[in-house]
């Protein structure tokens, strides 16, 4: 087993910590989403949805708590989609040549970058959960300490699989593109449908059939399902809809993310193995 990807990881993390603006903005952004969008939306939506009573025995969940899972997912999506950008700079500044000319297997470049992007997503998810608790997000209702620990682990596993898939995708695209502007364009274009055609901010039950079908193929939907399964349980009521997720369904969502990551790995591996410097 070769461990050189840890070297790439190590350098990416040094950069993350040294590049102050990137560090602070990436930590602050999710908190701002929670603070402004979350509070504004929940104060409105809770007014409407409070008129729909939860069925007996089902835990009602307020909107802020509901969307907190969506904000974790969204932040993970953004961070991962742009996570490959550093490779583009490496390439344009010639730094990539040092790695390509070294005996390190080339797939380790994308693995190191992906691992660091995943770490950033873990840090961000932790911040959202901690900050959310301050704002009144009711994650882990009446859970025991061990169940909370297990749930956080479960959330991280979902966040990890999802971010890995998108980081490998982003690394692949970055390796093929010439300009950061191009990457920015593609990623911004992808962000909108991925984010809005999902269950991150609202229930998909009310979508038209066509959008519902699309949302089921959206990896973000499966990430949010997983996070809610661990944070809120398999049966709760929010935004006028009842959410039931069996363990099998949660596993299915994870399998979907794992397959997505595996496909992205195979595609990115091809790109990296063929990488040449002109």
């Amino acid at each position: 087993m070769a461990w050189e990807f840890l070297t790439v990881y190590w350098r990416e993390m040094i950069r993350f910590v040294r590049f102050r603006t990137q560090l602070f903005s990436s930590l602050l952004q999710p908190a701002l989403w929670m603070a402004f969008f979350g509070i504004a939306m929940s104060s409105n939506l809770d007014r409407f949805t409070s008129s729909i009573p939860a069925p007996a025995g089902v835990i009602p969940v307020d909107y802020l708590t509901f969307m907190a899972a969506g904000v974790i997912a969204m932040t993970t999506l953004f961070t991962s989609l742009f996570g490959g950008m550093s490779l583009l700079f490496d390439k344009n500044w010639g730094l990539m040549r040092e790695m390509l000319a070294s005996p390190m297997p080339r797939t380790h470049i994308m693995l190191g970058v992906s691992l660091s992007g995943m770490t950033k997503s873990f840090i961000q998810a932790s911040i959202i959960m901690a900050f959310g608790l301050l704002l009144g997000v009711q994650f882990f209702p009446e859970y025991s300490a061990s169940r909370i620990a297990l749930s956080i682990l479960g959330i991280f596993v979902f966040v990890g699989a999802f971010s890995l898939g998108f980081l490998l995708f982003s690394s692949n695209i970055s390796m093929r593109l010439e300009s950061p502007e191009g990457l920015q364009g593609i990623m911004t274009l992808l962000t909108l449908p991925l984010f809005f055609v999902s269950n991150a901010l609202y229930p998909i039950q009310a979508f038209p059939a066509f959008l519902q079908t699309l949302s089921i193929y959206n990896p973000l939907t499966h990430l949010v399902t997983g996070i809610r399964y661990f944070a809120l349980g398999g049966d709760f009521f929010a935004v006028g809809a009842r959410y039931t997720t069996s363990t099998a369904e949660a596993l299915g969502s994870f399998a979907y993310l794992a397959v997505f990551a595996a496909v992205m790995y195979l595609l990115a591996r091809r790109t990296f193995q063929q990488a040449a410097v002109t």
Partner: protein
Amino acid sequence: MGGDDIIEVCDLEHTFGNFAAVRGIGFTVKKGEVFSFLGPNGAGKSTTINILTTLLPLQKGTVRVAGYDVAREPGKVRKAIGIVFQDDVLDRDLTVRETMEFHGRLYTIPREERRRRIDDLLRIVELESKRDERTKNLSGGMKRRLQIARGLMTWPEVLFLDEPTQGLDPQTRMRIWDYIRQVNGAGTTIFLTTHYMEEADMLSDRISIIDHGRIVVSGTPAELKNTLGEDVVYLETEDDRKARDAISGIEEIRSITESPRGLSVTISTDGSHCLPRIIERVRGAGITISNVNLKKPTMDDVFVHYTGKELRDTGA
């Protein structure tokens, strides 16, 4: 090809789309020598280096570096070589030590060994005091020295130096030449490209000049300069025609050309031995000499002769 050839290139061709960047070149580099690869920009130099260093896939021909085929065993070639890139290829936000550390880890040098080599090399290139400085705060010369130290970290059998002194001041260049000689003295084969002809002249054991994707000439610096042959004496007198007659009997003179600005006399042997006699003859004929100048062929002349280009016109 002999057993002591550390680089063997045979019938190498490379095209980008319709453009043939390298059109069938072959050369060898002997173990332990300093080999210079010269050529104007766009001549195929970078393409060749990129193939030799496994950064570009081989299209046609055979290339062996340090005993390994670049197409079949790129991993072994990569382990055996070191590269100092043309531009300052340094991560601005890493410190000097981290830059070295990163490189050492890419080549899986064990930790203790890595630390020892970093200490040694930073001392050699005199960057010990800058250990924890970020590379963006280093001067141009320090950056280049750091890159040389980095290239040496893996104890390569062949060190590729792509324009190692470009844009550096004369003192720094001379120090870098010293490092190159030291490294070569310790047994490392050096593959050098440069736009500075005197650099190639001073450092190289052998030189190849490439132009339009083909090698136009190869040899030792002395051989190359000798192929241009002759030293040239420039002479300005009060009467060039008479002066021409006066010296025409001298055996070593190969040709004399007259121009409005004076005579240029090509000499088949060492010009400095012939010059006193030329002056005596002209004076003897009662002609006053207003200006005299002896020019020996330089690598610049060799380069211009074979590529038809002035180096300074090719840009950087």
